[in-house]
């Protein structure tokens, strides 16, 4: 009987998980930061429950909603890239409307945001939050880092899901034909090695079952960055195929002007509980 219970246990786990999770989203149970590598560890913060994309938004998902594909490296299951922060919040709202959800953002395309004084950003839309709306949104930096660190299931990894970047993420050394570890970063070296994005979900997931949260493409978060030495911009997390391994550590805060694009820049969806 005990053997039978053990054999049947996975059914119950699968059934109970399926209530809160689906193929593309992972339920993240909230709480305080457990991963000591997180920049938020030890701070008096409690993250609420939320859902986060199991994968980075793919080109297939982007084209279904937006119609065209901005990516440099083409493939339905490659992450969408070459999208700026404004493109991403617009995608969130457009997809929400298409799926009958309440848009999470109010986007003032004709209203310049006075807070944004970055001369390189000619877009400067004013984007505000509709608190409580059930639509898709970008994760906050705290939510992203909490999920990347494994949430309440954290095993205290440096990268999301491992202390070895090669197991969980694509960065400049392993995103091409040869492994470039041992060399110093050099753009020509990456070009020669045919480095590029990879199909989502092709490395190991983290403790919560989330893929590519370290590496592949850097992921836009909602927040403004807090680095006073860089021009005003939004936070990018997780590092991408162009950047160094340290960019893939869960606590690394990348930043970029909100209208910035690149073939290493994409995003992951999020939703409230």
């Amino acid at each position: 009987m005990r053997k039978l219970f053990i054999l049947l246990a996975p059914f119950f786990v699968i059934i109970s998980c399926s209530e809160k999770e689906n193929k593309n989203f992972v339920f993240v149970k909230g709480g305080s930061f457990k991963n000591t590598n997180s920049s938020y560890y030890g701070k008096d913060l409690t993250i609420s429950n939320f859902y986060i994309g199991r994968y980075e938004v793919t080109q297939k998902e982007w084209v279904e909603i937006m119609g065209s594909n901005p990516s440099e490296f083409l493939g339905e299951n490659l992450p969408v890239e070459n999208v700026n922060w404004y493109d991403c919040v617009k995608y969130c709202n457009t997809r929400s409307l298409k799926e009958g959800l309440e848009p999470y953002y109010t986007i003032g395309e004709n209203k310049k945001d006075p807070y944004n004084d970055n001369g390189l950003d000619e877009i400067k839309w004013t984007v505000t939050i509709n608190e409580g709306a059930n639509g898709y949104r970008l994760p906050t930096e705290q939510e992203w880092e909490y999920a990347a660190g494994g949430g309440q299931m954290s095993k205290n990894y440096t990268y999301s899901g491992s202390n070895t970047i090669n197991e969980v993420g694509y960065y400049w050394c392993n995103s091409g034909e040869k492994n470039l570890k041992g060399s110093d970063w050099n753009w020509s070296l990456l070009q020669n090695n045919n480095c590029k994005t990879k199909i989502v979900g092709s490395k190991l997931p983290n403790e919560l079952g989330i893929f590519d949260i370290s590496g592949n493409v850097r992921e836009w978060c909602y927040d403004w960055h807090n680095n006073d030495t860089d021009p005003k911009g939004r936070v990018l997390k997780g590092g991408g195929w162009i950047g160094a391994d340290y960019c893939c550590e869960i606590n690394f805060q990348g930043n970029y002007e909100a209208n910035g694009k690149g073939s290493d820049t994409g995003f992951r969806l999020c939703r409230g509980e």
Partner: protein
Amino acid sequence: MKKLNFSVLLGALIVSAVSLTFLSCSKDDLAPETTNAQVQDQIEPVKSASPSATARVGNQNNFFYSIDAEGQLGTINITSPNGKGNFNFTWSGVRQVVGGLGWSSTQRINVGYNIGSVTTDNNLKFVGLYGWTRSPLTEYYVCERGPGALFNAGSAGNNYTVNNHTYVMTKSQRVQQPSIDGTKTFWQVQGRWGGAALNTNNAINVGAHLDNFKGALGADFGLNFATPSGGTNAYMVFGCEAYDYSNNGNNRISGAMNATIWKI
């Protein structure tokens, strides 16, 4: 028999459940990767730096070397025969080339140098110290000989004096370009003296140059020269840059440089 049937049934159930789990978790319509990046035909790849067989950047005998040719044209090579700071850098069949020997971190030291020989044609634009700093990313040049490194639409900074030489500063912002931090907007800055003679010992006070660059890049734009954990890109190299973009970019250049560097 009854026991056998139950086992078979249970086995079938498990197999089905596992299959269903995999099916529900698998990504559908996995399409093959393709790229719209253009493939360049008939380009001879750059030969690697010595002693490494694959890398054009690397470390040897406590020195860091870096050589690069624009568009992967031609042949470039660097050797450091005595391992004590003397090096030979050669290039041929390239449109633009940059390279030299230095250290794998930016340090506020005095760098001693002696340029033994360097090509004298008009394609030589820069001989001096160059490198990267991080947080925020900055690419910097201290030009000791030649008219100065290639900049895109550089603007003027304040002139300054270091080691009894007057340097003319230019700066340029590289917008949304690849970097070790990913695609970024970052600054290039250069101080140019340009008067260094051959076979003469000279010095570059790195810290003094960096302080002047910091002042030129804006009050809220600090320079942090610490090498981050795992990061290796705060290097500084003494070398040269040469290029010829005339004749619609069809010209190719060759040249060589020999120099010795040391820490003072």
